[in-house]
């Protein structure tokens, strides 16, 4: 691998790293695991990079590799001890910007999302990232209709968690 390719790849990833961080936040529980997953995703992206033709956007290509790493290739997420909750850390910082009820509701929502299974999380993630159902379906390898049905089920599940 030549220097130019390395440089190009790292720059692209540096610019788009938020996508990977968001996935890590969803799929891990502490900083250490977060970094570990980020590293594995980076390795997988780098290994696949020579085959990236540039006919789609770097970020679009990244979603797929990163999600696949998180739900399929990454092995260690359950082993990590839950030392501190990532979201609660973020919420401590952000608490002032929110009014009480909305903040409460969001906190509940994030907790609920974290309790979902790997596949449900992937669907929610792509939805929150504003991907359409065609792309969600293609990424996961299911039909568009089924992606919609599944998404509705997840919405209902979240609703029952919020309003028991």
């Amino acid at each position, binding site marked *: 691998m030549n220097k130019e390719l390395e440089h190009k790849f*790292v*720059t692209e*990833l*540096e610019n788009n*790293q*938020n996508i990977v961080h*968001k996935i890590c*936040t969803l799929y891990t529980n502490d900083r250490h695991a977060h970094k570990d997953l*980020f*590293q*594995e995703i*980076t*390795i*997988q992206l*780098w*290994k*696949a990079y020579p*085959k990236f033709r540039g006919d789609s956007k770097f970020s679009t*290509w990244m979603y*797929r*590799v990163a*999600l*696949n*790493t998180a*739900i*399929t*290739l*990454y*092995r*260690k997420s*359950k082993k990590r001890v839950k030392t501190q909750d990532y979201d609660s850390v*973020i919420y401590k*910082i*952000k608490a002032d910007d929110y009014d009480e009820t*909305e903040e409460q*509701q*969001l906190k509940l*929502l*994030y907790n609920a*999302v974290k309790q979902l299974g*790997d*596949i449900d999380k*992937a669907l929610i993630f792509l*939805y*929150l*990232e*504003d991907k359409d159902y065609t792309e969600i379906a*293609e*990424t*996961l*390898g*299911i*039909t568009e209709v*089924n992606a919609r*049905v*599944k998404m509705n089920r997840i*919405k209902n599940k*979240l*609703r029952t968690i*919020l309003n028991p």
Partner: protein
Amino acid sequence: MDELELLKKDWQKKEEHLPRLSFDEIYKMIWKKSSSIVKWIFYISIIEFVLWATLNLISYNQESFQLEKAWHIYEISTVLNVIYYFVLIYFIYKFYQNYKQITVTDSSSKLMKSILKVKRTVTQYVWFNIGIFTISFLLLLYGSLKYGEESEKILSAAAKSGNETLFWVMFAVICLVIIGLILILIWLFYRLIYGILLKRLRENYRELKKLEV
């Protein structure tokens, strides 16, 4: 307001609170070693191939060669051996083909399917080995009973026991129990390795498959 819309709005705002890695930090990461499940399966598979082939090889030495000659099972044993190496080559080829098909840029469902396919090839290879060992075991048993030094003792013991049929039935049962126990042990061992490694993948794959119905 729709709960998810609320979440989506907040999700987009969240960016500024995410950690940020520098160019150098990311650059260092690309040279780190992967610890992905695919890598684990690859190493375990290589160990399987080497282990079983070695077991097969060391069971053929000068001594066993002489014994097979004496027991008149040499020819059939050689045929079995030739078959073994042809099938071994086939399995290595198939493993390599399946392994190459694992692509991280595929859809999640397809990626999981390819990983499970590689694992299935290795499982088939293990069962094939167990089959060969069972046949060899039975062959040796047959040879030793018919031509072995101890055979006369066993045969006369059978005659002396009064009920010859019962003796042979007991004999067969004992053999089957031994083979059965070995198989169960091997099966448990594999359940353990692959169970730990592939549990989550299988669950996720099942979940995606369920959606296709």
